């Protein structure tokens, strides 16, 4: 009898408890397992068997990796990827850190404008930047034409921008804003009292810079460097437009899949590429965590800005020069979109045809792009919010695993996500290649970190007592979530979602392997139009894309203030 009573009270106890949260936890978990963990596992498996063979132990081979030792194309790609990534990190730091310092610590006009314009290169699709540099410095590039006129006097000539130099140049300008914004933030937020106390103790300016300022911002620089490295090594658009016969790992993957439908070979390349990223991350973590400093200042005192006229002049000229160079693509594209040709000094044949033709040639792709970006953003918002809430508030055992799984795509180049999804879902029993669905899944997997991070950040700032007090007032978990948590984290969700939308609209690397005739997106169409050499139409389409993205980001800034633009650090 007593056993029955105990059992009864135990069951009643269990029913009384609130399991809603755990049931909801299943949604993001299942999604991640099915569409990220599983495809990655299949992809890794496929890398060790040859194309067309069963995924079985007896077919195990290292042949897909051997190409890195036998094929000169593979070796060159690997070398190029390394060279480009390190060079881009080096140049962005070299150019971006002084700019961050100047804007943060030197008195100059239009700081807000400089910061706003400084962010533009990141919200411009990278491959658009690349093709506008073709207009400027390509074989018939106008700027190259002008420069060569001058160089001719000395018997020299500037080669066209194609090849390694062009890739490094364009990529450095594209990713410069990361370093600029992160170092600007670090220079501004470190505690001025630290420098002032050093000054009072008699240290000179250069000594303070060397012993206090730079060491304090090292963690930020480390974060910026790894961000630039990950993006450079995963970038597909720039080497695809400017590479010519110089392949890098992402274009090599594209080549294997597009040319031979060799997912096994592509997986092997993907593994190598991701391993490099992981090693880089580990090194960065080791360097930075060895010097963990508190850079957030609690003091209200502000830095005294440099007011020396010479320093001011240098700073202003430097910033304007860098801005002019890094904004040249946007300006070029805008001008180009209104003309037929631009091969001499001035563009010729003013026309609006490039725009008038858009509805006729691009209405389907625009519709596709919006449909995919909107749907994926909304689903990302849902999954990312739930996952963030659960890891942050419920702290389940293995929560770190969810965190890790969600952030994985952050280090995976877009093209690698595509390879993994194709490996798992392009053959029977489940074949969804060429559908909207596979692009949608790729988009969600790839951009989940945006909403996730954004919501986690909002949640950590949210006093947990707010939710506890609601619980104590008698509210169930779901009631509390609906009435208290959700309204308060909504800004974080919305800004993460807008950011997701803006980046998905210009996504090229993920879609390039997944699109079919039915599912062409706007960036794909621009990429193909560039390949056909039709720069006028490519420009008008790019302007359309850039303006849309710009408006989204601008609206976000208005609604959520300055901090939201820093979400771009996420990458």
């Amino acid at each position: 009898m007593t056993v029955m009573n105990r059992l009864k009270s135990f069951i009643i106890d269990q029913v009384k408890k609130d399991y809603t949260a755990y049931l909801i936890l299943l949604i993001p978990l299942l999604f991640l397992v099915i569409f990220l963990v599983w495809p990655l596992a299949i992809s890794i498996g496929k890398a060790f068997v040859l194309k067309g063979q069963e995924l079985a132990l007896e077919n195990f081979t290292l042949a897909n990796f051997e190409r890195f030792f036998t094929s000169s194309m593979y070796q060159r790609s690997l070398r190029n990827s390394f060279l480009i990534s390190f060079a881009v990190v080096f140049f962005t730091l070299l150019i971006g850190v002084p700019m961050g310092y100047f804007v943060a610590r030197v008195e100059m006009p239009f700081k807000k404008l400089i910061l706003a314009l400084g962010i533009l290169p990141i919200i411009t699709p990278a491959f658009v930047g690349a093709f506008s540099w073709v207009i400027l410095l390509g074989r018939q590039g106008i700027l190259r034409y002008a420069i060569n006129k001058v160089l001719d006097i000395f018997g020299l000539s500037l080669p066209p921008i194609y090849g390694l130099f062009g890739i490094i140049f364009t990529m450095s300008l594209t990713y410069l804003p990361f370093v600029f914004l992160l170092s600007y933030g670090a220079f501004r937020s470190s505690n001025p009292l630290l420098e002032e106390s050093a000054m009072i103790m008699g240290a000179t300016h250069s000594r303070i810079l060397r012993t206090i300022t730079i060491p304090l911002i090292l963690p930020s620089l480390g974060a910026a460097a790894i961000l630039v490295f990950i993006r450079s090594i995963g970038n597909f658009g720039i080497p695809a437009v400017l590479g010519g016969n110089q392949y890098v790992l992402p274009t090599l993957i594209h080549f294997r899949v597009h040319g031979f439908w060799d997912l096994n070979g592509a997986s092997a390349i993907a593994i190598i590429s991701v391993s490099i990223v992981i090693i880089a991350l580990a090194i960065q973590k080791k360097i930075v965590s060895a010097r963990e400093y508190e850079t957030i200042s609690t003091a209200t005192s502000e830095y005294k800005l440099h007011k020396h006229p010479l320093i001011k002049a240098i700073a202003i000229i430097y910033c304007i020069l860098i801005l002019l160079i890094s904004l040249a693509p946007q300006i070029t594209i805008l001008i180009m979109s209104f003309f037929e040709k631009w091969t001499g000094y001035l563009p010729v044949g003013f026309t609006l045809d490039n725009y008038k033709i858009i509805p006729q040639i691009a209405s389907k792709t625009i519709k596709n792009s919006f449909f995919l970006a909107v749907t994926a953003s909304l689903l990302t918002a849902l999954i990312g919010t739930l996952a963030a809430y659960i890891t942050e508030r419920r702290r389940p055992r293995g929560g770190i695993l969810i965190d890790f799984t969600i952030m994985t795509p952050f280090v995976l180049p877009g093209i690698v996500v595509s390879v993994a999804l194709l490996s798992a879902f392009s053959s029977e029993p489940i074949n969804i290649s060429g559908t909207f669905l596979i692009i949608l899944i790729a988009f969600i997997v790839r951009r989940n970190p945006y909403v996730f991070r954004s919501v986690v950040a909002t949640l950590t700032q949210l006093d947990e007592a707010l939710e506890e007090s609601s619980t104590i007032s008698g509210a169930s978990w779901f009631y509390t979530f609906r009435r208290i948590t959700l309204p308060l984290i909504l800004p974080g969700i919305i800004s993460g979602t807008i950011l997701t939308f803006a980046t998905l609209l210009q996504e090229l690397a993920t879609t390039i392997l997944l699109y079919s005739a039915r599912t062409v997106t706007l960036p794909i169409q621009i990429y193909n139009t560039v390949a056909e050499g039709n720069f006028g139409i490519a420009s008008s389409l790019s302007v359309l894309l850039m303006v849309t993205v710009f408006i989204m980001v601008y609206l976000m800034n208005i609604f959520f203030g300055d901090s939201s633009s820093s979400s771009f650090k996420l990458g």
Partner: protein
Amino acid sequence: MSVKNIVYKNVVKKFAGKQEQVVALKGVSFEIKQGELFCLLGPSGCGKTTLLRITAGLEKLTSGKILYGDKDITSIPPFRRNIGMVFQSFALYPHLNVFENVAYGLRVRKQPEEIVKKKVTAIMELVGLPDVLRRNPSPTALSGGQQQRIAIARALVYDPEILLLDEPLASLDAKLRRHMRAEIRRIQKATNITTIYVTHDQEEAMAIGDRMAIMNNGLVEQIGISDQIYHQPENIFVANFIGKMNFFPAEIIEIQGNNYQIKLDYNKKIIDLYLQKEQIKTDDLKKNNKIILGARPENMIILQKDEESTFKGRVQVIQNLGKIVRYEVSLLQIEKGKLIEVDRERALPGVKEGDEVAINFKKEDLLLFSGNIDYKEGYKDDSDE
């Protein structure tokens, strides 16, 4: 209907720390009576907030039981316990206006609109903010004291059976704090709701609580009313945490009825004491045993140096605190110079910092404790930063 007391039975709480397990509560058992205002007092990390959160159901206990009346509430989730709680940060909802903040618990209980209105108006009256509802702003626009009152109103509006307050005054400035603690006591007496009040401020606990528990290191050191705890501390931790006490290790020489003769370790002086039973806080009272003599600063006397005395010392700091003057004196003929504190109602004329003085005990209100402390080091006070 039985009396609804809160009963803790051997409550243990362990947290899984990063490296090792942290034991926040090491077996706590006591009872809080229905309708009383009970303070949990102790230094930070003593387990008082954990005990409060366990009472609320926000933390699960590792072992032990909590009873409410004759009902075991140990495994009842927080949202079914019918408790009101005021958080240190107030935890007012910034996206809801004052009315909706206060009405929250009623909305959860799906009360009809007219009852919500009536109850919110009444409770705002009780906490002394009837006018705020007219403008009905966001709580973020209000002052700290007003936010405090709204947090209390929100916790009381749905007639909970228990009210929990977690350092509710910690974020207010000193003057407002004194005012609000009187207000909290007034509101508690008006509603007669069983209330647990967590604080690390002994003055606050003494002023507000009907009874209090002094906690240290996961255990309850003493439970009692303010007067008892101040004048009859059970051990040197309580004696030193509540107010200030000077400790002198000594040895018992002779016991005759209520007359005791002890020898101070410090200067081997022998002094005679006449002690009542309640002044003796040690079971180990035998000839030749070590004990500790405790004297509050107001139970010591400071004199000009040439007078007959137990100690000689040098004045280090004189603080005039208004009601009293506090002398910090280092005892002479000792290496590090043990510091003691002596209070006087008025300053001693002609004595300034650096002067030599003589120190004596007032013979009443001295206490004898067990324990073993080095007279050179003195008692280490954890609560002092």
